[in-house]
Every structure is written in structure tokens, then in C-alpha cells.
């Protein structure tokens, strides 16, 4: 590793995390450092965009261009950032509330447009920052601050959801497995197109220490011979009742990115060279 230009230290900022001891987000952060270093992404060439939540504090802990924005808008902000400067590596991060609740309207569109970015959702099945309300991934029947008589809602299946949006890369990791997670992060970041990674990231504070154990016991990696190029197969394996939480890459089929599409539009629109804006005046000649 000594010949690497950017080591993990280069990605670490001076800001001290406010996370609780045992929070899964520490693991996600460390895996992200590793992945960035593996890929040698220049810190000054990265835009790391988050929403609001415990998990969304992550960009502050990375020495880069971070944006701790507003709740639920990771994807449009990232979309604007990417399309306004396609040479920047864009990664969006946030929580399950941020991404699957208030932000859920943006998922289909970033995915189907195939914006060339990575989106990591730290799923702890709870609203951490606001102190323990149910999230769209809180299991049916669970008791939280807002479901004192038991959660009346069936949770979302993020993998199936993203598959249905035709995301070109869909994966799941567990913060408890830093090395595997780093590897998948690196593949997601290197992926050309929209890469979604659900990071199971326990919240000991509001879900108890058991959450970590539960995930550990109910998750397993996709078989090593699994080929992530079949939407039907991926959909099947994403059935959590049947298969528990499968980890790994469910789907990875690159297709034309939005960047490429826009470049081709720009080509088509240019007759020759770049005209002066004032040439547009001809448009208004009667």
C-alpha cells in the first residue's frame, strides 16, 4: 500500500464523529475510506453528498468536498452535481429515512436515468437522529417512539425496489464486515452508471445491541457462482422471508449512462463548434 498516493489518512478529516459508540456508521465510514484509497480517488475531485440524519453526518468526516444538505434530497443534489461537472466522482450517502421515506420519490428517477454515481444508504431500520421513530424498514410489529402499539406497516424491500427501477448496479453490505464492504463499495464507485448499495448499519442506541447480532445471524453472501445479470434471479434472491438478508452484488449490468446520453445530445445540437450566445438573436428575427 505504500506506493499509493492517497492513503486512508488522506481521506480522514479533523472533525470528530458525533455517533454513539457501537454505531454501524463507523464501519461504513471506514470501508468508504478504504474503497476511496483502493480506487485512488483524489479527495479534491470527489463530491460526497448527504441528507440529514446520523448517517448523513458522514461527509464531514471525510476530507473532501462534502455537502450535508437537507433531508431526503441526496439524489437530486448529486444529480445536479454530476451533470454540471461530469469529471467529478459523485457519491451520495444517507439513512433509510432519508432515502426510502422522504427521499423515496427520487429513487426511481436517478436509477432509470442511470446517473453515473454511487448511492449508499445506511439502513438501521430506525430514525436515529430524531431519536427513535419507525422508518420504512422497521419490521412489522416493532415498538418504536411512534409505534407504541407495534408497527402497523410492512417494511420496504430496498433491493427489490431498486431492481424495479432498473438500477444498473444493486448491492447489499453489512457494516460488520468492513473488508467485504470496502470491496463492494469500490466496485460500486467504479461502476459506470447508477450504483445502489444498501449498507446494513445497526443503531445500538435505538434498536439495541441485538440488531447487530440479528443481522449477523440472518445475513449471508450470495453464492460465489451467482451471476448478477439476471433481473428475475436477483428479484427472487431478494425475497427476505425466503433467503434472509443476502449480501453482495445482486445486479450489475452497465448500460448507457445519463452522462453519455447528454454528451450525445450536445453533439447532436452542435452544428459546428460553439456559437456565440448572441447568435441566438437570429432565433428572434421575425
Amino acid at each position, binding site marked *: 500500500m505504500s506506493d499509493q498516493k492517497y492513503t486512508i489518512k488522506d481521506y480522514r478529516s479533523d472533525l470528530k464523529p458525533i455517533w454513539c459508540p457501537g454505531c454501524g456508521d463507523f464501519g461504513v465510514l471506514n470501508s468508504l475510506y478504504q474503497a476511496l484509497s483502493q480506487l485512488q480517488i483524489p479527495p479534491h475531485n470527489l463530491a460526497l453528498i448527504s441528507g440529514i440524519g446520523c448517517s448523513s453526518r458522514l461527509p464531514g468526516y471525510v476530507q473532501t468536498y462534502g455537502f450535508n444538505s437537507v433531508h431526503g434530497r441526496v439524489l437530486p443534489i448529486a*444529480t445536479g452535481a454530476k451533470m454540471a461537472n461530469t469529471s467529478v466522482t459523485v457519491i451520495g450517502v444517507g439513512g433509510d429515512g432519508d432515502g426510502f421515506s422522504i427521499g423515496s420519490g427520487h429513487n426511481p428517477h436517478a436509477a432509470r436515468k442511470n446517473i453515473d454515481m454511487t448511492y449508499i444508504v445506511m439502513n438501521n431500520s430506525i430514525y436515529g437522529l430524531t431519536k427513535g421513530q419507525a422508518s420504512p424498514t422497521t419490521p412489522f410489529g416493532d415498538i418504536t417512539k411512534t409505534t407504541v402499539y407495534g408497527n402497523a406497516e410492512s417494511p420496504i424491500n430496498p433491493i427489490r425496489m431498486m431492481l424495479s427501477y432498473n438500477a444498473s448496479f444493486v448491492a447489499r453490505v453489512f457494516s460488520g464486515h468492513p473488508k467485504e464492504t470496502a470491496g463492494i463499495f469500490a466496485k460500486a464507485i467504479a461502476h459506470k452508471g447508477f450504483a445502489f448499495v444498501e449498507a446494513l448499519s445497526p443503531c445500538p442506541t435505538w434498536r439495541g445491541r441485538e440488531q447487530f447480532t440479528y443481522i449477523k445471524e440472518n445475513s449471508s453472501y450470495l453464492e460465489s457462482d451467482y451471476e448478477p445479470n439476471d433481473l428475475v434471479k436477483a428479484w427472487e434472491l431478494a425475497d427476505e422471508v425466503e433467503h434472509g438478508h443476502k449480501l453482495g452484488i445482486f445486479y450489475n449490468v452497465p448500460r448507457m449512462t445519463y452522462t453519455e446520453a447528454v454528451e450525445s445530445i450536445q453533439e447532436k445540437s452542435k452544428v459546428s463548434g460553439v456559437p456565440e450566445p448572441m447568435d441566438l438573436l437570429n432565433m*428572434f428575427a*421575425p
Partner: protein
Amino acid sequence: MGQKDIAIGIAGSGGDGVISAGEILINASASDGLFTFMLKSFGPQIRGGESSVRVRLNQNPIATQGDRLDVLVVLSWKDFMRFRTEFLFKKDLVIVSDSEDKFPEKDIPIDREMIKAWYQVPFASIAKEASGTSLAKNIVMLGVISELFKLPQDALRRSVMKKFSHKSNEVIESNVKAITAGQEYVQVNLKKEDHVLFEYEPSHPKLVMEGNEAVAFGAIYSGLKYFAGYPITPSGEIMEFLGKFLPKYGGVMMQMEDELASINAVVGASFVGAKAMTATSGPGISLMNESIGLASMAELPIVVVNVQRVGPSTGIPTKTEQADLMQAIWGSHGDSPRVVIAPSDVEDCFDTTVLSFYIAEKYQIPVILLSDSFIGQRKESINPDRFRNMEYGFKKVNTRLTPTKEELENFKRYRLTESGISAVSFPGIKGGEYQAAGIEHDEKGWPTSDVDIHNAMNRKRFRKHDLIKKEFEFVRFYGPDDAEIGIVGWGSSKGAIKEAVERANAEGIKVGAIIPQIILPFLTGPFEKFVSNKKKVIMAEVAFSGPFRRYLRGFIRFGDYGASTIPFRISGGAPFTVEQIYDKIVEVSKMEDKK
């Protein structure tokens, strides 16, 4: 002998080609050097319903569409009925209508006394005969009225040819024939009254532009790199224009899933250093308030265009109103500084867009450009020369203040500077890495809940307002400085106010007007000057609840100047007429002084 100004209304069903007739007419007129104004209006049907245009032509620059029509052209009386409250007529009105229309004459709701001449023409039959299809009846109609009222004739032919230039020669020819046929019909069959005859000297061609197009053009001129939007009436033309032309300039136009996505995409684009804009109207702008606040807090320049329409809620999407003013100023939660700029006509749409980018980029602040459907969707002719020597404007819109090498050693993105402006970096700049934040932050951009830092940052963010006030006094004055009656209006009300003030002064009623182009920060200086010698100030606005009045009074104590204030607020739907304003001025001029 002839008149130098003419206002023509045309009404018919969607299939009658009313709108394209209007467009051909103003294009022809503009190419002959005339100043023009064209407004459209539609019924509720999505397609094939009623439509109307009104066109005004003048040798000299004009500020409004003209209150009353000289000429009314009706292709279908049934469809005309939809607009009967929208048209006012001059005395000695001339009507040109379709003789084949079956509508019972007695049901036509126009005072017969007002009508001086009434020509009936079988448009469809003439069209069929001349060009083989009754579809060309709108072109025949143009031929008829050009002959009746001496409108530009060669220019009309040229415009028709241009309009159909992508069609076959046959089509072009048959349309040109339709014009001629219309003209000949008049010569042969009609007894011309000739009391309405338009007279003008051809001069160099004018451009024809809609307000929304002018905004889009101004944005490209300013170096726009990224636009994200969501379709909404009456702002859609901005997005459509940019979708067509922005890629040519290496920019990106994206239609997003909604306005939340649009505004946030624009904030994201600004974060990476691009000039970025979105455009919307009422319902859309209400959804954008959260992230306009984000841009304010993160100090990221963005331009947000609101082409106002009638509210509240869905309201009347196709009609104009000025009721979003206070929302533009105060719509986001918290102390969230922004700049609000209002164009007052089509040309202004270009200027104020350029100004918006200039201010946004220089001061790192969101700018809301408050247009409305009256400006945004009308066509006006514009002297192309003004664009050739761009002295009036900003030759080049500033780029942002980026950090110096020294500053990058220990970069503080939100440094507390005297001006309130701190250097901003973006991806690509080594050493400039920082965290942008909607959360309150220290100079580094790191989260804080410290009361003193919050206070210091508030001061920093609002200092920009003071500087902007110093840099600009973008207001317009009309009438004599020393008038004791004043009228204040904004945005699209300018045209009617200007013409009414001119008329009042011409008739001996001394009245002055002030129209601010920059609404926020409040331009204290010009307003103080204006109010200082006023006894009575009329506050004119097209908004029932009177937001402009509340705004003005909030920022300037009229009482301290001994000025009484007279609200003049009308519900939206239609803009002010010159008459309405003029009558108000007369009324106020007769009022006893209060004190």
C-alpha cells in the same frame, strides 16, 4: 390622415388558426420595423377550444397591448363569447366577421352604437377557392384586414413564406395566394369605410420575443451551464427553449421528477461551480422554499425564476397575477437572505436575468426572478441594436470569488469577512475541500449550535444585502420628480402605469411613478427620494390581499414623510388597463389631502 397606432383582436376556435395568424401579423409588422405587442388567450379545452389574440402595432415603442380594440375580427361568434369580458372596444369599432358563421346576430353582445363598420367575409370559401383548403382561412383573414386597414402587405407575404418555409413549395404558394385572395375580396366586394387606416414608415426590422424566451436567452448569455426544471404553465417555454439551445453551448437541461428535485439539482450544480437555474410557477415555487433556504444557508448562487400565475393553489394556470411577492421575500423558514428581482417587460426579462446571475454569483446568494404570465407569454418587438452594444448591461457575468493560494493553506469556506462574501471553492480545486452545509456551521463549514457563531453568520449572510443596495439602484421613474401624487407599482404593471402617468401629465395632472426592478434588498435611497415630496402615494398591484402594499409599508414609513398611502389592488386574471390606473390617478388627484 391614418392612425399611428392600431389594436386588433381576433377570436375563433382552436382550429381556426387564430394564434398563428396573430404570430404572422406581428412578425410581418416587426420585419417592417414596427413596434408590436401580442397577447394570447385560451378557453379551458385542452385542444380545439376557443382562442384569441390581440395585436397592437405602432411606429414607436409602446408599453402595453392597448386597452381597447380598434378592430375586432371574429372567425366564430360562439368562441368569441368566451372572451367577451376580456375585450374592450374603442368607439367606432370595426368588426370583421365570418359571413358563413351561423351564430344569431341578435345574441352578439356588443353595443351596436359603438360599431362604425361591420364587414362580413366568407373566409373559408375564399380560402377553398384560392388554395384548395379551407384551412387557410386565417391567412385569407390576414389578407382581408391588411387590405382593409393598410397593415404591412409585402411583409405579410414574406412572413407567410417564412412560416411555411419547411413545407413544400406548393403549400407556400397556396398560402401566399390566400393572402392575395383576401385582399382582392376586399377590393372587389367591400365598401370600405376607411376611418381606421394604419399609417407607418417602414424602418429596420425588430426582433420578436416572448418574456420566457428572453429569460432563457439571458441565461445562456450569462453562461448558464445547468438547468433543471419541471413543466408548469406559464413557465414551460423557458425549459423548452433551453432544452433546444443549451446543449449547443455545452450546457445541460434536465427535466426532473418534480420541483423538489429541480431546485436541489440546481443547488448541487452550483455546489460544483456551475451557473445554475430553475424556472417554475406558483405550485412549484411553493415546493422550492426549503431548498432556496438551503442555498441561502450554504451560500450557493442559484437563480430561481417564478413566472407568476393566478393563485392560490392551482388557481388559474393560464392567467396573470402578482400575488407571490411576499412569498419570494419571506417564503422560506428562518432568516434566509435572498435577492428578489422583477422584470417589467420582455426586454427587461433579458436584463434582469443577466442581473440575477451577476448578483447570485458575486454575492453567493439565491436570486428569485419574479416574472408573470403577462410578461412571460406575451410577444413584444425589441430593437436588435440594444443587444449589439451591450453597454446597458453586464458584458460578462462575474464568476465566483475563488480562494487564493494562501487562503487554500488553511481554507475557511465561510470566513467571516467584512463584505459577507467569502471565497468559495469547488471540486477540482486542490486544498479547497470543505463541507457545504444547510446546518448552521462555523467558518470551516462544520456543524455548530453555538449561539454566537449563529449570530455572526447571520450578520455575514445579511451583509450582502447592504452591498447589493450600494451597487445597484435599479428602479425606474416616470413623470416629473416634483409631483405630489405618486404611484408605485412593480413588475408587469409597469406598462399600464407608464402610459397612464404619461397621459395624466399630458392632461395636466402632475403625477410621478416609481417601479423598482430590485425588490429585495429594499432600495431605500430611491424610495426615500421618491416619497420625500409626495402627499399621496398610490400602491398599485394585481393581488387581492395587497402584499406589495404591506411590503412597502414594512420597509418605508410613509407617515414620516407626511404621505398618505392609497391601496389600489385588484384581483388577478387580467393585468391593469391604462384606463384603470388613469382613473385612479384622477380620483386621487381630486381627493382632499388628509393632513
